[in-house]
């Protein structure tokens, strides 16, 4: 009985926090104008002058209504400035996955090389240390100038921000492979390829996946900002477009969806990481 109780305690508390938050939100943005309780006909006669108390912020109901609309028709396309949220999220996800995938293709082999050759690692380390803390958006002008395509520039920005955590973690994981495991491979006269694929890779996999998880989190943070800059499509552009429309309900909906998709990406990589994690 006690165990059942404790299993439900956290979700119940979560639900309670949500209810309290929604109630506080509703209360904070409620209509406090003098016309609130008036007969609508009379309010009309009073004119716009007194009709100023209503908050510009949407209520939870407004956002829920938008969400319901988005769920019912996520993939409509009514021209450049009016696309369904499914389409916008799809664009963002495609950019993130492309940039992240390219980054993985570069970072994991390079990280392997750095981890296995300490001299090479020490040689490139200063460059990594300087480039790593640069905000990925700082690359945007350079990317726009050289690539001359806003969409590819956004992908490049995702690439450049995803590359570092994967590179550093792969190098760290590869360099940290137990000497005894390598010694076993040596006494078995295992070829370099087989050693890399069947000893070092599985040994370093948990660390590599930790890097990938950090990278995808950063990529998802950066794509919103990048799309606000390059415009056109994507969830970041959607949020900025709704700011221009002054539709705060849509902005809140965008924020909610960004959070949910980000959580899903993190969970997916978390699951993948636990699949390759070994226990001693």
């Amino acid at each position, binding site marked *: 009985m006690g165990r059942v109780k404790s299993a439900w305690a956290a979700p119940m508390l979560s639900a309670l926090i949500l209810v309290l938050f929604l109630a506080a939100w509703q209360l904070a943005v409620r209509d406090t104008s003098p016309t609130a309780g008036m007969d609508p006909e009379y309010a009309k006669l009073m004119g716009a002058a007194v009709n100023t108390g209503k908050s510009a912020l949407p209520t939870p109901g407004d956002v829920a209504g938008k969400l319901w609309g988005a769920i019912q028709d996520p993939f409509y396309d009514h021209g450049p400035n009016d696309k369904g949220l499914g389409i916008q999220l799809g664009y963002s996800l495609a950019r993130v996955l492309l940039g992240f995938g390219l980054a993985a293709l570069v970072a994991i082999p390079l990280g392997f090389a750095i981890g296995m050759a300490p001299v090479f690692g020490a040689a490139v380390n200063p460059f990594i240390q300087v480039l790593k803390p640069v905000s990925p958006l700082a690359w945007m002008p350079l990317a726009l100038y050289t690539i001359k395509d806003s969409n590819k520039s956004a992908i490049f920005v995702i690439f450049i921000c995803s590359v570092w955590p994967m590179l550093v973690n792969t190098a760290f994981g590869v360099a940290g492979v*137990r000497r*005894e*495991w390598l*010694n*076993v491979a*040596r*006494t*078995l*006269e*295992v070829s370099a390829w*087989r050693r890399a694929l*069947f*000893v070092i890779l*599985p*040994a370093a*996999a948990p660390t590599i996946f930790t890097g990938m998880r950090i990278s995808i989190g950063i990529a998802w943070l950066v794509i919103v900002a990048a799309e606000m800059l390059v415009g056109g499509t994507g969830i970041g552009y959607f949020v900025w477009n709704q700011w221009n429309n002054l539709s705060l309900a849509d902005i809140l909906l965008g924020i909610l969806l960004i959070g949910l998709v980000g959580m899903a990406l993190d969970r997916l990589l978390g699951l993948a990481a636990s699949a*390759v994690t*070994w*226990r*001693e």
Partner: protein
Amino acid sequence: MRPYLSIEGIARRYGERTVFRDLWFGVNRGEFVCLIGHSGCGKTTILNILAGLEAPDDGALVMDGHEVSGPSLDRAVIFQSHALYPWLTALGNVAFALRSRHPKMPKSEIEARARAALTLVGLKDAADQKPSELSGGMKQRVGIARALSLEPAMLLMDEPFSALDALTRGTLQDEVVGLVGGGKQTAFMITHDVDEAILLADRIILMTNGPDARIAEIVTNPMPRPRDRTNLHRQPGYYALRNHIVDFLVTRSRLLAGTRPEGWTGRDVPHITPTDPVSSQPLETIAP
């Protein structure tokens, strides 16, 4: 005539500090040799040199008439810390070694051989478990199965039982006697356990304390094999042998450390076979 594996004047130095030098000994075909000594005399380094994992600073290793450099599948190692790959099952660990030995062998054959090797060490039912699900003794058994499955010309063991509890250690020692004590498998083992050495080894190499360690003497185990733990201590010569080694470890390894006697040469260390004194009392002392 050279022994099957001949260690010829190897040394290890770290800058000014010499761990050991001028080490000469051999292991004959089918022989089980133990090296015994305190921590710091470079035991593990010696084994690593024999395995080819480290190169000596001086001297050479000759196996079957050929100089040895680097590791080889012919010298299988049982590591102190079992050194299993935790992401593979017990079967996977043995199969990985077998695959290295036989790159072209069909998968089914590899698996059958790996299962057979695990059955040999009593792990038939644990084949599909990961090392994390196995006890310390079972893990070391997998390590033994992995090494034996290679059918190596030489088996090298680095204190393979030192991390185990006394009961498990005894069982495993008995199993090793059964598996490699028959005189067919050439083996070399590092240990600091006197009883283990007497049970397993045909000859026991005694090392002085480091630094600048050397071989003090090589003791021949007079007891016939296969040796059996249950009646070993009733056999003539057992106490003489045991007391001689214990004496060495307790006092002489320290007294003999450092300075080398006048005219001492590493190529010609004393070979000793301790025998019971006439009174059949345990030996009191042997002068250093």
